[in-house]
C-alpha cells in the first residue's frame, strides 16, 4: 500500500497540462515532441520538387499565424485507394508503428492565405473542392522547396509527414459526397446545423471535420478556414452537445455498467452510473508516457461537467469533447441517460501523441461491446481494480463526478422502507 502511495505523490507535470500546445516550459519548441522527432525514422519521400498521388482526400489547415494560415492537401506518393490514410475511424487495432508508417507518407503542401480568402488562388479552390470528396482524389503538386523529411506530431491532430510550400497543384476528377455538396451549397444554413445534419445522415465525423476546416459550411459571409486542430474539437463539441439534448429526455439506466477498450497501451474504462447526466474524463499518465516524460509519479488530470453542461473550454483539451460525443452517441442509440465517467490510463507503451481520434474511437469501440453490470459502486471498483492499475481511492479523490456520486445523497435515499 505504501508503495502504491509513493507512486502517486508529487504534483502533476506541466506537460500534461500543456501537451505541446502552449509551451508552458518557456522553451521555443516542445522538448517532448522534439525527442519523438529525433527518434522517428522518416525516409525522404521524394527527391523531387513535385509529388503525384491519390489524396485520401486529406486537407490540412495550420493554426500558426492565424488569421493568416497555411492551407493545403495531404498527398501520398502513391495512387489508388488511400482512404485509410486520413480516416481515423479505420485505425483501431493499428499499432503506433503502423500509424506512423502510413501517416508519414502524407506530404503536406501548404499555401499561406487569409482565413476568409477563398478566391485568390487555384490551390485554394482545389483544396476546398477536395475537402468535399468522398473518394481519393488524384493530385499533382509542385513545391517551391523540397519537402523536409519529418513527422509532425500533435496531441489533437493525427500525425503527418513532410511539409513544403506549394507552387502549383492540379487535381483529377472529383466526385463530391452528395450530402456535403448539399450542405455547402446552402449559404443560409448555420455551420452548426450543417454539421448536425451531416452527422445525422451518417457522414463520418472525420469527413465533417475536414470539410469544416475548409470553410465549407455556414452562412455565406461567415465562412472561413478553420485550423484543423480547432475544427476537430468544434465538430466533436457541436455533435456531442446536440446528442446530449436528446439524451437528457431519456430515462436513467438502472444499474452500473462498465465498458472497456485497450489500444496503443492506453486503457479506457467507460463507467456508466444510474444517475442523471453528468460527465467526466480522467486521464492518468504514467511516467515515461507522452505527456509525463520527466515525472517519477503518475500525473492525473480531469475535466467534468454537471447536468447543465460547461461554458469554459475543458482543461484537458479536445479529448474531452471527443469522448463526450462517443458516450452520447451510445446513450441516444440506447434511448437511455446515465452519469458517465471515462477513466483512461496511458501506460509507457504510449510513446507518442496520435490525436484525439484515439479517445473518440476507443470509447466508441468500448461501447460496441457488451458491458459488465453491477449493483453498487463498490462492486464496480472491485472489477475495475482488476483492469486498471490505479486504485479506487485515488480515482475517487481525483474525480469530481465520482465524489459527487459517492457523497451527494438523493431524495430517494430518505424514503422509509
Amino acid at each position: 500500500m505504501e508503495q502504491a502511495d509513493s507512486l502517486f505523490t508529487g504534483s502533476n507535470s506541466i506537460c500534461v497540462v500543456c501537451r505541446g500546445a502552449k509551451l508552458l516550459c518557456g522553451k521555443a519548441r516542445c522538448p517532448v515532441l522534439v525527442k519523438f522527432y529525433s527518434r522517428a525514422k522518416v525516409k525522404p519521400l521524394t527527391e523531387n520538387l513535385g509529388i503525384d498521388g491519390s489524396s485520401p482526400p486529406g486537407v490540412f489547415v495550420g493554426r500558426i499565424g492565424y488569421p493568416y494560415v497555411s492551407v493545403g492537401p495531404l498527398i501520398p506518393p502513391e495512387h489508388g485507394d488511400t482512404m485509410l490514410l486520413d480516416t481515423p475511424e479505420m485505425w483501431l487495432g493499428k499499432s503506433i508503428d503502423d500509424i506512423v508508417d502510413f501517416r508519414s507518407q502524407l506530404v503536406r503542401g501548404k499555401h499561406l492565405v487569409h482565413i476568409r480568402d477563398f478566391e485568390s488562388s487555384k490551390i485554394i479552390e482545389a483544396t476546398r473542392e477536395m475537402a468535399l470528396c468522398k473518394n481519393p482524389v488524384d493530385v499533382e503538386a509542385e513545391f517551391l522547396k523540397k519537402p523536409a523529411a519529418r513527422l509532425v506530431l500533435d496531441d489533437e491532430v493525427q500525425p503527418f509527414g513532410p511539409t513544403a510550400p506549394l507552387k502549383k497543384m492540379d487535381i483529377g476528377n472529383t466526385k463530391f459526397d452528395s450530402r456535403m455538396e448539399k450542405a455547402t451549397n446552402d449559404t443560409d444554413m448555420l455551420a452548426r446545423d450543417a454539421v448536425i445534419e451531416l452527422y445525422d445522415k451518417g457522414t463520418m465525423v472525420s469527413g465533417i471535420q475536414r470539410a469544416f476546416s475548409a470553410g465549407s459550411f455556414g452562412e455565406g459571409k461567415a465562412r472561413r478556414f478553420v485550423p484543423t486542430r480547432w475544427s476537430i474539437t468544434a465538430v466533436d463539441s457541436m455533435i456531442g452537445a446536440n446528442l446530449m439534448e436528446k439524451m437528457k429526455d431519456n430515462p436513467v439506466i438502472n444499474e452500473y455498467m462498465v465498458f472497456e477498450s485497450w489500444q496503443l497501451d492506453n486503457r479506457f474504462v467507460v463507467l456508466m452510473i444510474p444517475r442523471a447526466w453528468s460527465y467526466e474524463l480522467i486521464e492518468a499518465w504514467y511516467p515515461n508516457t507522452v505527456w509525463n516524460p520527466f515525472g517519477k509519479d503518475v500525473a492525473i488530470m480531469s475535466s467534468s461537467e454537471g447536468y447543465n453542461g460547461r461554458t469554459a473550454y475543458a482543461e484537458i483539451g479536445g479529448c474531452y469533447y471527443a469522448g463526450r460525443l462517443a458516450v452520447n452517441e451510445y446513450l441516444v442509440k440506447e434511448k437511455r441517460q446515465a452519469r458517465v465517467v471515462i477513466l483512461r490510463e496511458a501506460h509507457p507503451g504510449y510513446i507518442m501523441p496520435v490525436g484525439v481520434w484515439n479517445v473518440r474511437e476507443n470509447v466508441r469501440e468500448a461501447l460496441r461491446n457488451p458491458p459488465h453490470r453491477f449493483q453498487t459502486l463498490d462492486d464496480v471498483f472491485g472489477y475495475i481494480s482488476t483492469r486498471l492499475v490505479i486504485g479506487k481511492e485515488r480515482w475517487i479523490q481525483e474525480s469530481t463526478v465520482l465524489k459527487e456520486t459517492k457523497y451527494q445523497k438523493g431524495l430517494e435515499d430518505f424514503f422509509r422502507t
Partner: protein
Amino acid sequence: MFKAVIGAEKLKDSVESISALVDEAKFRITPDGISVKAVDPANVAMVSFELSKDAFDSFEASEGELGIDLAKLSSIMDMADKTDNIELELDENTHKLVIQMRGLSYTMSLLDPSSIRKEPKVPTLDLPVRIVIRGEDIKRAVKAAEKVSDYMYMGANGDIFFMEAEGDTDKVRVEMAKDQLIDMSSGDARSLFSLDYLTDISKVAGKAPEVTIDIGKDYPLKLKIKIADGHGEVSYMLAPRVETE
C-alpha cells in the same frame, strides 16, 4: 378552462421560486388555485409550490395541467412593470397560453405535460430542529460560504443555530442564538449541503421576511416561505452530502 388576473410581481416571484430548481414544470390547475411539484434532474432537491386563488385579482378555472417552459415565461415577465396586472388565459382550441399586459399580448405555446419529468414522491421527514429566520440572514450566510467552498453546513448546538463553510485555507461561520432568530426549537443537528442548490434557493428565500427551516443530522433540509401576501407557499427539500461512510 383557465382565466386569471394577477399582479406582475407575484407572478414573477412565483416563477422564480420554481425555476430555482427546474427549467420546465407541470402546473396543476384547480378551481381553488395553482400548484406545482418538481424535482431537479439529479433528484437532489424538490420544490412544492402552492398559490391560492385569493392571490389573484380574478381566477376562474376547471381542473387541468399546463406544461410551462419557465425560462420563456420568465423572459416574457421581463417586459412587465412591477405594478402591471397580468392576464392569463388558456386558448382551448390551440392549447396555448395567452399572456396580456398593458396592451401587449404574447401567445405562448405549452409543453406536453407528459414530456415533463414526473412529479416526485415526497419523503416524510422527522427533523429535530426548526428555526425561523429572516430571509436576508440566510442569503448573507450563503453568499459568504460561496467565497470559501462549494458546500455549507447547517446545524444547531442546543440554542445556537449555525451555518459554516470551510475551504482549503479559509473558513466562514455564522452563529445565531435563539434570541437573534424569529423562533427556534432547540436541539442538535448538522448536515452538509451543496451550494449549487442553496445559492438558487437562497435567492428566493432572501426576499422573504420569514423563512422556516427544519434540519437534522446528515438528513435533508426543509425550507418554507410564504409568498403573495400569505396567499401562497413554497417549500424546498434538499438532500445532504454525507462524507462519512
